[in-house]
């Protein structure tokens, strides 16, 4: 008889779904994730799952300050995500967002420390802006040049540049440490506030948020309505086609990566000059990597990225709140975030594919 076993089900590619069905799938996934989280929470910790959800909510929206911090964190994550997106659209995997932002932070901090007292405040800020954008661009430009010239693998190259940046920052943290030997820079220019960005009213985060909002709109326009954006899309679809229609692929790669790096540098600048006023090797806080997820989940669309970065920051803040409120370890919050992300990313599978049960007897 027939030796081959028929599987119980098989997976096939779906055609395009109408938007309401894709969002129904995503919504179901989110609901499922929340239910799963509730079950896991009650089994593992014996806490009331509803109270846990409430804590996740209040982690982001509990107080006015928390809402501001939420918005600030969204804008920072969004900024790095916007930065890596043009490269991603070109199918050029810039995983160096972390390092590019870090190097921008380093140069901003360098300007604040070394130029304080030597130049007027506005000139220091100007130097910070110019140098951090250039430094970020350079950090992305090096791998881009190698890719364009010798077709090196940009994924590995940009990834490795992260470590170089981290070590450089760790080194300068020791050079500028205060007090000696502590490896800490602390707040830079706490009394003179040289190099600190001006505050809009009493809101210390508002300026950063507005800048990133503007960058977001500009990036949307750039990618969708400019000639450059079109070239990026064509190179992303097929390099050969791009060459055939006369696009200089090497130039597009380098130009896009420079832009990508510069916007990352901007994120570093905003963190150092706008809010933190310090420099540590962990100041970017993994946003360079989270940005990959933000950008991918939003299908590389800058406007959707507002939503996806909100989702990730919201979950992260909620995780922290759970840890505080229930005396649980921070890791428990991370587990919940993991469950939710797993469901959301998993839902993309069901949007692209469908599972069909195999009916017996139909195989012959």
């Amino acid at each position, binding site marked *: 008889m027939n030796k081959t076993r028929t599987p119980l089900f098989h997976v096939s590619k779906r055609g395009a779904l109408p938007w309401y069905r894709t969002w129904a799938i995503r919504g179901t996934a989110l609901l499922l994730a929340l239910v799963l989280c509730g079950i896991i929470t009650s089994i593992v910790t014996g806490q009331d799952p509803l109270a846990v959800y409430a804590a996740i909510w209040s982690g982001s929206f509990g107080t006015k300050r928390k809402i501001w911090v939420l918005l600030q964190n969204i804008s920072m994550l969004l900024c790095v995500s916007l930065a890596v997106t043009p490269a991603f659209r070109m199918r050029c995997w810039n995983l160096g967002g972390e390092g590019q932002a870090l190097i921008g932070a380093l140069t901003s901090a360098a300007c604040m420390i070394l130029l304080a007292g030597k130049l007027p405040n506005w000139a220091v800020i100007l130097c910070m802006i110019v140098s951090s954008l250039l430094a970020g661009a350079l950090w992305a430009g090096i791998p881009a040049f190698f890719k364009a010239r010798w077709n090196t693998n940009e994924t590995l190259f940009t990834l490795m540049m992260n470590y170089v940046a981290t070590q450089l920052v760790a080194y300068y943290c020791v050079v500028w440490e205060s007090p000696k030997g*502590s490896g800490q820079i602390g707040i830079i220019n706490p009394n003179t506030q040289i190099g600190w960005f001006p505050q809009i009213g009493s809101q210390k985060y508002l300026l950063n948020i507005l800048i990133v909002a503007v960058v977001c709109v500009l990036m949307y326009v750039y990618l969708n309505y400019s000639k450059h954006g079109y070239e990026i899309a064509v190179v992303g679809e097929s390099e050969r086609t791009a060459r055939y229609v006369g696009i200089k692929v090497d130039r597009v790669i380098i130009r896009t990566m420079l832009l990508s790096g510069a916007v990352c540098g901007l994120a570093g600048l905003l963190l150092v000059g706008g809010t933190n006023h310090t420099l540590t090797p962990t100041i970017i806080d993994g946003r360079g990597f989270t940005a990959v997820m933000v950008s991918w989940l939003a299908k590389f669309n800058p406007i959707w990225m507002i939503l996806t970065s909100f989702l990730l920051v919201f979950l992260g803040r909620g995780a922290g709140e759970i840890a505080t409120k229930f005396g649980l370890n921070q890791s428990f919050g991370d587990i919940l975030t993991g469950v939710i992300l797993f469901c959301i990313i998993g839902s993309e599978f069901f949007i692209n594919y469908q599972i069909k049960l195999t009916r017996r007897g139909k195989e012959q």
Partner: protein
Amino acid sequence: MKKTIALLLAVVMCLALAACGSQKTETPAPAEQAAPQTEQAGAEAPAEPAAEPAAEAPALKAGFIFLHDENSTYDLNFINAAKDACAQLGIEPILKTGIPEGQECYEAAAELVDEGCTFVFADSFGHESFLLQAAKEFPNVQFCHATGTQAHTAGVPNYHNAFASIYEGRFLGGVAAGLKLNQMIEEGKITAEQAKVGYVGAFPYAEVKSGYTSFFLGVRYVCPSATMEVTFTNSWYDPTLEKEGAIKLINDGCVLISEHADSMGAPTECEANNIPFVFYNGSAANDCPNTFIVASRIDWTPYMVYAMTCTAEGKDIGADWTGTIATGSVKMTDINEQAAAPGTAEKLAEVQELLESGKLQVFDTSTWTVNGETKTEYMADVDDMGDFQPDTNVIADGYFHESEFRSAPYFDIDIDGIINIDA
């Protein structure tokens, strides 16, 4: 374009609705939560009206900020103290763990204030400038910072530093280590010249230098031929680096290890290699039964009780507070008889009495030299203005006055007999 905007708006609305919906289902939850919170003041009291417990305990909400969570021995020591102190006063603490030494510390402090805390404590050296920033912004809240250096010069009345004379505890740890070395020499396992101890330090600055120097002086107090090698991880908590540091020292011929970093990295490596070690922050007798000798630690409970009582009663907390072994702020864990040399307990009790009575000074200048010379004066950077300018002579009456001019250590002299193998 219009389509996308319409779509976006639709999604935002959907989300908003979903959000509202989920909030509604949650409404009973906050109410449930609110109830235990009002009870918190009267630890474990049944759900009585809030006024009753508030009368017996000081009306105070206390918030604590920790660099890591309980997996770090350093933070665990603080977490235990915070819970202890709050239990004594009938206060429910709000603990924030895993707060990095950056803007996050300021944000955590501000959030604690938003939640009604009038007492905020942070446990890591690098939290200082961010906590100070919060202290300036919220003058009605008392901010206490362990191990910091700036309070006595910052001129911010609601900002305070605290530390304990842990060098006394480390000296005792050193004595226990020295006795172990003597035992090994007597048993013929090593010669007197091979009595080399290793030390895994975090950062090469005063807090760590003061710690390992006092430990070393304790070792030499009973084992005069001892020498020491030091290596640094440049991190407060890095199990891998601390483990590697221990391996490096063991390979260099160190026969006993001590450390000032916050993970179990070095101890587990010592246990694996059967190298005896003296620990910090808490006992490792359970994980390392064959090699753990004893540990010194700071008991933060007395300070926390003092500072929170002051806050509740509206009294001044000193800008700079130092606990000592005599006041119960510096403690030794139980000695692990399996690893310690016989007679360790008696010797430690004897030396501790000498320390408490002031007959013995840890940094007695006759016991150590720099380039072969005895120090008669030393200008230390006590007033930390960020300038590294030495400003105070701290050697007098034949010893280095550690933690007297300011709670945080300022002994940062490289003495003879200690070799930094990273230099």
